[in-house]
């Protein structure tokens, strides 16, 4: 019963893809293949791997993630919000407690600081999810569970006519397996 109910969610009908998927074991083979494919004009390829590899990052010429700016803005907003909250709550009812100064900076710093970390952390999470396109509900490429184990996949979306050339290039760079989707 549960199987039937969850089946459409857990095993959706795979979408149709046009392109070539090369599966590699050796990291240097995969990095060389990425460099060659990019030189051949296939800039929009995707690489799937169980762990991130610097060689692949260099081959893809990936820059640093933009998530740091989202986090920075979140931190600024959090600190401003935290200090603002302290100021507002004191100003809205200026009640002297224990003879302490009303607008005292040290306690405000604690609240402002914790708020900065909280909002920066939440922004970091949301920034990461948005930039990494997560949650990913629709597959962008054919998926293989081996990508979570020990294999690297290179997916090159292309027109049906270009698949042979790409498949040859991948095999030439040591692909263990090449799957043509057309």
């Amino acid at each position, binding site marked *: 019963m549960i199987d039937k109910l969850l089946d459409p969610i857990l095993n959706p009908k795979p979408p149709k893809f046009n392109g070539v998927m090369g599966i590699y*074991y050796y990291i240097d083979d995969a990095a060389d293949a990425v460099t060659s494919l990019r030189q051949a004009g296939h800039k929009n390829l995707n*690489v*799937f791997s169980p762990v991130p590899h610097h060689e692949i*990052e260099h081959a893809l010429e990936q820059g640093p993630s933009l*998530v740091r700016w989202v986090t920075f803005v979140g931190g600024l907003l959090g600190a401003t919000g935290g200090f603002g909250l302290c100021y507002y*709550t004191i100003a809205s009812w200026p009640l002297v*407690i224990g003879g302490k100064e009303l607008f005292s900076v040290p306690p405000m710093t604690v609240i402002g600081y914790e708020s900065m970390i909280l909002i920066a*952390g939440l922004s970091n999470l949301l920034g990461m999810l948005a930039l990494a396109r997560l949650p990913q509900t629709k*597959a962008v490429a054919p998926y293989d569970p081996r990508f979570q184990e020990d294999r690297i996949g290179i997916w090159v979306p292309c027109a049906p006519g270009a698949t042979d050339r790409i498949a040859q290039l991948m095999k030439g760079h040591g692909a263990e397996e090449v799957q043509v989707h057309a």
Partner: protein
Amino acid sequence: MSTTLKNIAVDGVNDVSYREVTQKSINDDVMSMISLPGKVWWALFLFDLLVLGCALAGVRNLIVHGWGVSGFTRPVMWAVDITNFVFWVGIAHCGTLVSAVLFLFRSHFRRAVYRLAEAMTVFGVLTAAMFPAIHTGRPWFDYWLFPYPNQRQLWTNIRSPLEWDVFAVNTYLTVSSIFFLVGLIPDVAACRDRAKHPVMKLLYTVISFGWTGANYQWKHFYGAYLFFAALATPLVFSVHSVVSWDFAMAQTPGWHSTLFAPYFVAGAIFSGVGMVIFLLVIVRKAYNMQHIVTIDHMEKLAKLVMLTSCMVGYSYLTEFFMAWYGPNKAERDLFLFRAFGHYWWAFWIMFSCNVIFPLLLWIKSFRRNMTALLILSIFINIGMWFERFVIIVTSLTRSFNPANWFYYRISLTEILLIVGSFSWFFMFFLVFLRVLPSFSIAEIKETLPMPKRRHG
């Protein structure tokens, strides 16, 4: 085509626990822990629930009959509740230390142990947060602790250190939970691909956010992970500093000291690493994971305990020195009372467990002996619980005015609360062991030499 994990431990090849590890075998090994629970697990879990049930009966008594049923009497109104709160927040600190601070310092031994430590952090904060919530006496009004807009413009007193705690602990719970769950994403995706039970597969599909391991996902994942670590590092130091200021901001003898923040942070890491060692020794043995968490990893954790034990011992001595050297007679009397007064036994349990017994860690063979580490970790946690008890109870029983002096005695309800806190923590932990990967598959793989055709 297999890759041998020779450097997961520095000298792992000579280790009896050494066995060949490949990228795929890490998936196999870690996911083998996620299976239908056996008899031992069920026995432990049901026993844990039974204890928790008894503790809940104690909480029910507190709520229905009020604080009179516990041993809380003026002037010792914090007693066990706040002792438990500080103890569990302290336990929680190790996870963030191992996952964030050691990540920033590129200390790779963390990879084998951080997941378990992070889980401990989240469950530790969940346990800690219960105590102030119960301690308010009317937990159904706990939302008053938060600043929320209301018709009468009544706001929380942000100049009170107790309010700082609300912000600090909630931020810590949120950020450490996010850090834990984000770190799980790639590993849970691996679990999703192998899960057979539809409910488990659905759970993993949801938690993995549809992770595929694409290059653009890794790029932003590690971009964000670095910042989580960078945010969690100052947070871990600030949270226990804020907790220490609950005491240090008061003028009560024994509390009013600028030493408290670093002293509490060191103590938190000390007790937290002690708990991680306790859990790891059992888990690695029970699941036969000695090749993933090697003796070298355990020894490095033991060295952390050694370091923090020295810091804690130094703080104890500094407190006594300052009381003797300073002008405050009440402070001097209080410290004499702590060591030789009514609660001398609590003080000496604390001092022996936290300072004297850990001196054994200077011996290398002791650091590499799992049974010895397990026993020591239990003593450390007993000692650290008593540290908070000593700080809270001795200072409150003997404040400035002798007319207020009173000897506090623990009640059955409070004992139930202490035992219940452990069962609450272990309930989460036992479920975690069965449902989520207890070791980081992706990060342990990064320790492996990557397969390269050109280098053999």
